[in-house]
């Protein structure tokens, strides 16, 4: 099974109507998002993430199934690891040479988030897919795009909308040849403290590629969730416990910090209990958040002008474990979010045996991570060093991961009504349930038909976009209104995906193309007399015109080829086109013949126009005698030339070259036709040149 798909050989990829969507990751799973979109010979990659539950090469999407050098465009939706974690590897270690785009905030955060990930990764240097240096070098290759800004690369138009979810997250709308595809990345239709809700695009897409993380679940109300979160923390610290909240340094952490700061503000009894935000990158991260305020919602933008809400009153920064005095109850937010390694894992291992402590999983946890594992409430857990510990601390799952739920997805699809929906980024069963629910919703709807797909990794969805092709007639061709059935001819100019029809003379007005003529000049050595050449040329061409006005002797042959007699040579000139080239060829041959043949160096008589009637008649008699035999042909009387066969007599008139029967004699036309044809052919053979 070849990994490369060859386009249908009879139709080149550029003109083909086939659109292909293939997830190389996040197909019926969450993690390593990487979706390939192929249409009209263009190849686009959407996101390039790693799987947080796997390590090393295993964590990569199935990139081997495509040729990185063929990808024209790579779009990154947001900075979460499962959407851009493989980007440094893809940019630095493969043959990819296309262009990469993401929003400004995404690029800034990507730098520090991945840097944190590289530092915190527990695996040996050999296993690492890339280093800090690779990450730094990849920054130059990434270009940025503003929300709602339209860019065009290789005939592909694209722009992005706010997606909510995290700062800088975007939903990309891609347009190729009039077909629109919307890739949501991860999105949320609910506004939170600092992010706006995902926008509903004003343009309706033909294909929607959407996340399905929460499938058919319905989130609890925002106020209830926040209340539950704050109450759980309050309970933990009240019983003298430590509360661990594993989150990545950037992303949902900022939302939680805003919530906690406000809660502490309203509860003076908690002011002695420290809240730590543990990240070596904290300062850099907060600086980024303060820079990209215009990617946040209106409420916080107004608040920033008054009093920066990201300058927290009750939260302090913790650079590392060494700075941490573990005395008494506290709340610590530490990375990474799924506790694979790093500070959150260390703290978890040192606190998990005490039942007063508690851990709150505040985000979506991927299969294979410790965070996911403890949600099933196991008796014991394995530490990073392999030791087994009892799990006594409380485990709560309160998700702030800002993904869309069933209500939001359903409303989103209802607003856009895309004919095709492709589900990605969802665990297999969740995705299947969502697919069934969506199909059920539109089952009885006659007006709206939506096809839902949920491809596995490496499985392609093929769509064929049949449509009429439109060509715009412009310039002088458009001066008159045309009727149905009228023939229009011109030059078809294709620019990216738009077609125009123009007359050749209009080409320079509308395009960079221009019509031009090519003049050919050929010099041939010739030392004989020009009159000899002229008579030979008359043999060839019949008519040879002498151009009066020229200084040197100039002949025009076949009306298009000019011959000038210079010293020792003749110079031919003609406008290049297939017919003239052929004439020029013939003339050249004659010149060369005359030049090289010494016997021809004598003046020939001027050819007579047409053949004498006597000669013709003589030749005619010989031919007919040959054809029919002596008995049948009678030429004795110069006026009556006859041929007699089987009693039928045909009379031949040499002047007009027609053949008649006697009045009312024969019905059989074959003799007459045969003789007439023979007479005519003989005449043509003796007079080959008709006037051209």
């Amino acid at each position, binding site marked *: *099974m070849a*990994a490369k*798909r060859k386009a249908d050989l009879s139709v080149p990829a550029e*003109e083909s109507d*086939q659109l*292909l969507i293939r997830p190389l990751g996040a197909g019926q799973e969450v993690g390593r998002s990487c979706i390939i979109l192929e249409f009209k010979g263009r190849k686009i990659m959407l996101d390039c993430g790693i799987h947080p539950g*796997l*390590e*090393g*090469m*295993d964590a*990569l999407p*199935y*990139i*081997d*199934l*495509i*040729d990185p050098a063929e990808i024209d465009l790579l779009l990154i939706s947001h900075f979460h690891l499962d959407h851009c974690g493989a980007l440094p590897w893809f940019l630095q*270690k*493969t*043959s990819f040479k296309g262009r990469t785009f993401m929003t400004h905030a995404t690029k800034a955060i990507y730098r520090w988030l991945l840097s944190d990930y590289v530092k915190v990764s527990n695996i040996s240097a050999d*296993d690492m897919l890339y280093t800090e240096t690779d990450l730094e070098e990849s920054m130059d290759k990434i270009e940025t795009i503003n929300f709602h800004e339209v860019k065009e690369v290789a005939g592909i*138009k694209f722009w992005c909308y706010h997606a909510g979810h995290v700062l800088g997250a975007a939903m990309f709308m891609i*347009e190729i*040849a*009039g077909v629109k595809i919307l890739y949501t990345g991860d999105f949320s239709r609910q506004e939170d403290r600092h992010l706006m809700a995902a926008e509903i695009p004003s343009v309706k897409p*033909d294909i929607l590629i959407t996340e399905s993380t929460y499938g058919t679940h319905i989130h609890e109300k925002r106020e209830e969730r926040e209340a539950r979160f704050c109450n759980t923390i309050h309970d933990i610290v009240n019983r003298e416990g430590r509360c661990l909240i594993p989150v990545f340094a950037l992303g949902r952490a900022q939302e939680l910090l805003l919530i906690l700061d406000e809660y502490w503000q309203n509860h003076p009894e908690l002011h002695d209990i420290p809240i730590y935000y543990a990240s070596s990158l904290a300062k850099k991260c907060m600086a980024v958040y303060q820079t990209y305020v215009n990617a946040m919602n209106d409420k916080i933008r107004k608040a920033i002008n008054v009093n920066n809400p990201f300058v927290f009153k009750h939260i302090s920064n913790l650079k590392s474990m060494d700075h941490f005095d573990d005395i008494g109850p506290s709340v610590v937010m530490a990375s990474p979010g799924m506790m694979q390694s790093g500070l959150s894992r260390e703290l978890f291992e040192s606190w998990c045996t005490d039942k007063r402590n508690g851990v709150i999983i505040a985000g979506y946890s991927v299969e294979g991570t410790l965070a996911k594992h403890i949600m099933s409430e196991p008796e014991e857990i394995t530490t990073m060093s392999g030791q087994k510990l009892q799990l006594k601390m409380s485990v709560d799952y309160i998700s702030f991961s800002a993904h869309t739920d069933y209500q939001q997805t359903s409303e989103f699809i209802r607003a856009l009504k895309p*004919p095709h929906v492709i589900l990605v980024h969802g665990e297999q069963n969740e995705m299947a349930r969502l697919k069934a629910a969506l199909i059920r919703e539109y089952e009885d709807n006659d007006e709206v038909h939506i096809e839902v797909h949920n491809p596995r*990794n*490496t*499985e*392609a*969805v*093929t*769509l*064929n*976009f*049949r*449509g*009429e*092709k*439109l*060509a*715009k*007639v*412009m*310039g002088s061709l*458009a001066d008159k*209104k*045309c009727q149905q059935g009228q023939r229009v001819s011109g030059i*078809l100019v294709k620019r*990216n*995906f*738009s*077609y*125009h*029809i123009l007359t050749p003379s209009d080409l320079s*007005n*509308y*395009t960079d193309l221009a019509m031009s003529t090519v003049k050919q000049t050929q010099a041939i050595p010739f030392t004989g007399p020009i009159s000899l050449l002229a008579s030979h040329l008359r043999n060839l061409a019949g008519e040879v015109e002498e151009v009066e006005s020229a200084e040197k002797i100039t002949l025009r042959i076949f009306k298009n080829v000019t011959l000038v007699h210079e010293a020792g040579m003749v110079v031919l000139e003609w406008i290049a086109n297939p017919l003239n080239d052929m004439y020029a060829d013939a003339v050249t041959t004659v010149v060369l013949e005359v030049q090289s043949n010494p016997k021809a160096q004598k003046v020939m008589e001027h050819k007579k126009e047409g053949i004498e009637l006597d000669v013709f008649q003589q030749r005619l008699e010989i031919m007919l005698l040959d054809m029919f035999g002596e008995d049948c042909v009678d030429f004795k009387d110069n006026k009556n030339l006859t041929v007699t066969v089987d009693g039928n007599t045909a009379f031949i008139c040499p002047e007009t070259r027609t053949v008649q029967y006697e009045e009312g004699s024969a019905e059989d036309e074959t003799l007459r036709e045969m003789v007439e044809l023979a007479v005519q052919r003989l005449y043509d053979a003796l007079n080959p040149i008709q006037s051209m």
Partner: protein
Amino acid sequence: MSCVHYKFSSKLDYNTVTFDGLHITLAELKRQIMGRERLKATDCDLQITNAQTREEYTDEEVHIPKHSSVIVRRTPIGGVKPAGRTFIVDRSDMAAGSSRPVCNKHSHFLTISVLLLSSLL
């Protein structure tokens, strides 16, 4: 020591697997590559093709001679499924919003059902 050179299709350079003898079986080669690259996932398989002839090795017991070069592709277990049915999307006449008039001169839209576009070019 005999060796076989392998390269992942998406990566840029070759690595080597060494073994004793004149050839190595496909199953053993896969095991060695997965070990060297630390590929542990249970749902991942490798597709091995000869770098020169582009022939895919399918039989687990086939012998790959020493000094061969192979291309490796990570695939999900079960291989890459060929594309399923193609869905036809019928698009009614849409205004060509993507084409921009180059000049302000008046122009008319002409619908041409183009089956052999190349014949006009």
